Each structure stands twice: as C-alpha cells, then as structure tokens.
C-alpha cells in the first residue's frame, strides 16, 4: 500500500513537469500533494498531513489556477522540443545510481529523546516560539511585498 502511494507521488509529480497544458500540470501536482498528505497520515503525522492537503493542495493550487486564468492561454510558452524519452532515460540512469548507493547510506541511530510525549500545539508554541515569530515575519513580508507589487501594477497600468 505504501509503495503505491509513494509511486503515485513520483508519477504525478513527473506528469506535472511533462504535460504541455498548464492546467493539467497543476491538477496533477494537486493529486501528488494529496497522495503525499495520505503518506504523512500513515506515518503518524496527522497535522503535517492536514497542512499538506489543505494548504499545498488547496491554497497554492488555487493561486496557480487564478494566475493561469488571469494570464490566459495566449501566453503559452513554446517549450524546447525535447522528447519525453530524454527525461525517462535520465530518470532511469539517476535511479540506478541512487539504488547502488542507497544501501551504503548511514543508518540513522536515534537517541531516544525524552519529552516527546508533548502535543503538537505545545511543541509549536512553547518549544519553538521563535519559529512562530519567524512565521509572523514571513507573513508580514509576503503581505507587504504583494501590496507593493499590486500597487506598482496599478500605477503602470494607468
């Protein structure tokens, strides 16, 4: 079951790169996100799975689809005519190289960390509070930059 999910993640991500129609590429990226969210659920990380499905497969894909519909289809870029076979050949070479090295990678030996019985809310707000300040800073930066970009467009459009 896990094999099917992981293979689905890889295959739909590859479709997102190879498909020519932009909308189909974004939808296949969305399906890949949903499958990755289910993988997170099975790894006992439900909150990461929820975030992956609702934010990545939801919010970011909606942003992409809004942009594509704003730009319209007359902005399709003529991609270089490299056939799909080149990608598949490169991917197979890459897979062979990785599989040869993958069993030589160091095995992870965990020292058991105490205090991991805390809930996710406490970890996020109490142990990593500086990260929350960081998230606030990132959101401020994003909001102000978007406002600046939008107002520049309005000023140049007049």
């Amino acid at each position, binding site marked *: 079951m896990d094999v099917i999910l992981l293979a689905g993640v890889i295959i739909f991500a590859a479709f997102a*790169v190879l498909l020519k129609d932009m909308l189909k590429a974004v939808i296949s990226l969305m399906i890949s996100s949903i499958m990755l969210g289910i993988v997170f659920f099975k790894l006992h990380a439900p909150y990461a799975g929820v975030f992956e499905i609702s934010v990545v497969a939801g919010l970011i894909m909606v942003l992409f689809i809004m942009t594509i519909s704003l730009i319209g289809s007359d902005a399709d870029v003529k991609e270089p005519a490299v056939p799909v076979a080149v990608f598949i050949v490169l991917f197979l070479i*890459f897979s062979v190289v990785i599989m040869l090295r993958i*069993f030589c990678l160091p095995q992870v030996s965990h020292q058991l960390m105490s205090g991991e019985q805390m809930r996710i809310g406490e970890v996020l707000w109490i142990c990593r509070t500086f990260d929350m300040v960081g998230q606030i800073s990132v959101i401020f930066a994003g909001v102000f930059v978007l406002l600046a970009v939008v107002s520049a467009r309005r000023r140049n459009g007049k």
Partner: protein
Amino acid sequence: MANNLLPYGWMYVYTVFAMLFIGFYCIFARRSMIRLLIGLEIISKGICLLIISGSYPQNITTAQALVITVIVIEVCVMAVGLGLVINAFRHSASIDVRDFSNLKG
C-alpha cells in the same frame, strides 16, 4: 539517512531523491515562469517527506512543527512569485524566461 525503524525505509529515501531530481529538472529544462515555480514546489515536497520519514517514531511532533513552518514559508514565496509573474505578463505579454533582456551575465 535511511530510517531503520520503518519497514521498507529505503523506499522513502528513494522517493525523496526522485522528487529532488524531478524538481531540479523542471527548473533547469523549462522556460515558462510558472513551471519554474512548480519545480520549486516539488523540491519543497521532497524535503518535507525527508523530514517526516526520517524521524518516524521518536521526533515526530518536532518534525511536524518544522514541516508546518516550511509549508507556510512556501506559500508566501509562491504568492510573491505569482504576483511577479502577473506583473511581468502585464508589462510585456510574455512569460518566457529566455525573453529576459538583461541576461548579460
């Protein structure tokens, strides 16, 4: 980096590397601005899978906190990138990166 506590732990590492390969291929071999952002998104997914699968039973709450933060950062970067794409389209009606006129190194 292979997780020894997961059954078939090496599959997760292979998936991570495959996502990274696909993402970097997308950035280096595609010309449309939106495809570059799709490539960045795929790379982020690979790294999130690495963080969660590598810390499977012990550190899973800290790993979830890290992944949640990474996803928030990705949203903001994508939003700014898409705003710039729309802006570039309004200026010159093309979203091809080879048309960037001042690529003089």
